[in-house]
């Protein structure tokens, strides 16, 4: 677990948005659309990036395939993934507070 923490925190924006949306079951293309929408196109997750990120996250046990519908893989966060996402959210909250000269 400690290894995963140092590997993923701080995390890339691609990883952050994938984990964020996979708190509910979802698939790659839908995550990329929701990410583009939520960030006003600031964060793009094109297919090469998405495939690489999903397979790495699955290999590391942060997400898992819940089922496959017509070749489309549906993923969900694992407990480990949730733990890592929560840690990262905490770190970002501290960064944000600190950026305003406040303490968390």
């Amino acid at each position, binding site marked *: 677990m400690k290894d995963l923490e140092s590997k993923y925190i701080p995390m*890339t924006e*691609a990883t952050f948005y994938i984990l964020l949306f996979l708190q509910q079951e979802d*698939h*790659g*293309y839908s995550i*990329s659309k929701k990410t583009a929408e939520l960030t006003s196109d600031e*964060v*793009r*997750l*094109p*297919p*090469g*990036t*998405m*495939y*690489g*990120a*999903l*397979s790495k996250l699955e290999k590391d046990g942060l997400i898992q395939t819940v089922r496959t519908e017509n*070749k*489309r*893989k549906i993923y969900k966060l694992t407990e480990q993934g949730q733990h890592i996402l929560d840690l990262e959210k905490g770190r970002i909250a501290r960064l944000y507070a600190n950026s305003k000269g406040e303490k968390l």
Partner: protein
Amino acid sequence: MMKFRFYTLSQYHQEERWLEKMAQNGWLLKNAVLPGFYFFRKAKPENMLYRFDYFASKSQRNDAIALYEEYGWKYIFTMNGFVLFAHPNDGQADQQIFSSEEDRKGMILRIIKARMIPITILMAISLILLIYQLFKGPSKDFADGFTMGFTCFVSVLTVLCWYGLIKDWKSVSRQ
């Protein structure tokens, strides 16, 4: 129309640009067989994006193709682990299939791991055989001539591929 082009493993970006130019001239890629043999059909000149991605295994490739297709990319062919996708350049698709330097380098690393390491080992073995042969003294044996030719061919190819991949790696770092 069929066209043949000689290219090495590391020249995939060059092939992408060439295929895009062909599409602009009204030649759309239909398929490719064996390395270098492309089949085109005449069509309206079109602005197409062609992108190669690389996958070491068939299951990874199938998963990735399904994902690319959802994004609207059309699967064209697979050659030695390289998978070619096409998308009309209509503003709907991202111009790039990777959004970060790390992802672009990830693809280069996948190629190195799956292709370059085996080919480099093959080159090393043939070089050792060649040196052994040279020590044995000159010979006009057909088998020896073949080893010599094969070794030179593999060596030149390997060096060219490494050169191309390292160049690509550096250009990713500069972006």
